[in-house]
């Protein structure tokens, strides 16, 4: 074998024997280190997966949603408003949307009711999201009654349960016909909740929004890119909140690692003195300690990252779910796309492995250049 490699292997053998002499302390450090990487990596993987999923699927949402504002609050679109938009160049299609919220006292949950054309959902029928169907024990052809806000009881038959694969988007969705929607909420005829606009050319979206604001000063256009940006920041924010909560743990680990790596115990100093006395060079001592740092930090990083991957993509990030998903009663079940961002992993690697290995060097170098006799005393 190559003499250099053989020498490194001997150094590793020696390092491991040295670590084994302080077994409890080093195993404790390895466990704490692995846990820290596990928590940070889980957080990064989970947030990143949700963020990329939101970005991909919401790319299909309407280019522009136009809301009407009254006294700073979202209000109904009155009759004639759609016509006032007129023929704005670039707008391919404009459509009044009808949707709203319904609070179900049975589950203590909010549903999102949305009207669909009669060609999709017939009068007296509804299509429901999988989470809602699961919680209310609904299946196709079952009937369900909702008491409207005016106190009247409406009974609907379930025409279909939406695909469980779409639960992330449709967990609480109830799709019903336009007539049923208007009757249920006593929505005034000709009024809409908001307007969805399709714009053919993506470059034109901002111009269209500017024209809409000029033509209808009481309107608020929401662009698709804003919708997507909202989701980027929602997960950034929640990730940030969790990181803030974890900051104490991270700092505690930093102190532990620094104390372990930087502050040499008398026993370690004596060991270095003996090594020097029996003929080890300063370089060998430093190399040995670098191996020690690398063995601990690499094992912790790789182990922690793998555990995080399994936790997030096979166990649905059970530890963070409640914090990152919210506090909703209707809880969507979904599988995340196991996309891994190389840059994020590299950043995590840099901020966990590198500082620990580097922190080891300075005190070792200081001890290793001291006279063996003085170190051993």
């Amino acid at each position: 074998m190559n003499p250099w490699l053989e020498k490194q292997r001997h150094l590793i053998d020696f390092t491991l024997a040295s670590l084994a002499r302080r077994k409890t302390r080093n195993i404790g450090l390895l466990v704490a280190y692995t846990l820290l990487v596990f928590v940070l990596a889980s957080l990064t993987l989970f947030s990143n997966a949700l963020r990329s999923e939101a970005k991909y699927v919401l790319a299909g949402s309407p280019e522009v949603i136009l809301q009407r504002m009254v006294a700073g609050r979202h209000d109904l679109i009155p009759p004639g408003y759609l016509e006032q938009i007129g023929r704005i160049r670039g707008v391919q299609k404009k459509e009044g949307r009808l949707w709203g919220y319904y609070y179900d006292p049975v589950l203590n949950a909010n549903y999102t009711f949305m009207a669909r054309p009669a060609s999709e959902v017939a009068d007296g029928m509804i299509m429901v999201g999988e989470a809602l169907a699961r919680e209310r024990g609904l299946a196709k052809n079952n009937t369900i009654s909702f008491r409207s806000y005016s106190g009247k009881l409406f009974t609907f038959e379930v025409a279909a349960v939406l695909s469980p694969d779409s639960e992330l988007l449709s967990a609480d969705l109830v799709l019903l016909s336009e007539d049923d929607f208007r009757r249920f909420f006593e929505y005034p005829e000709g009024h809409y909740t908001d307007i969805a606009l399709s714009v053919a050319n993506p470059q034109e979206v901002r111009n269209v929004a500017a024209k809409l604001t000029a033509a209808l000063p009481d309107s608020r256009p929401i662009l698709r890119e804003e919708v997507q940006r909202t989701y980027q920041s929602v997960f950034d924010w929640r990730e940030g909140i969790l990181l803030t909560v974890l900051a104490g743990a991270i700092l505690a680990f930093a102190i532990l690692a620094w104390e372990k790596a930087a502050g040499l115990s008398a026993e370690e100093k004596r060991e270095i003195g003996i090594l020097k006395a029996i003929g080890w060079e300063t370089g060998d001592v430093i190399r040995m300690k670098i191996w020690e740092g690398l063995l601990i930090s690499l094992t912790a990083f790789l182990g922690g990252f793998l555990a995080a991957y399994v936790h997030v993509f096979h166990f649905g990030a059970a530890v963070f779910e409640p914090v990152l998903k919210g506090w909703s009663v209707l809880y969507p079940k979904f599988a995340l796309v196991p996309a891994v961002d190389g840059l994020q992993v590299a950043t995590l690697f840099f901020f966990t492995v590198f500082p620990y290995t580097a922190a080891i060097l300075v005190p070792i170098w200081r001890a290793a250049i001291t006279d063996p006799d003085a170190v051993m005393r």
Partner: protein
Amino acid sequence: MSRPSTVALVIIGLLACAVLGIFAFSGPLTAAHQPRLDANRELVARFGLTDLALFTEARYTRHPSQADLHSALQDHPGAFDHFPSGSLLSPPAHLTRDRTDSHEPVAGKTASPD
């Protein structure tokens, strides 16, 4: 018996291979989800959806992209602050002032209805 260095290097090597495997198989594993993602994007386009159904507890959490910035405070004047930052900021001084203070709150003490 094998040397400790062999055991340690084999363990680290296996862990590293598993991590590299994650990167190597990330493409095919992601591709397996593609039909679901495409179907969901199609659903979003068909129904004109704008938000994920992650937080259904309030309208501004169910449809954060459709709510304006201060909708949490619009439920009624003086509504509780639902923003997480509310837990980091102390309430305004006049709300925590001692009741015996000369500027006693007048809410609920007026003769005419609020």
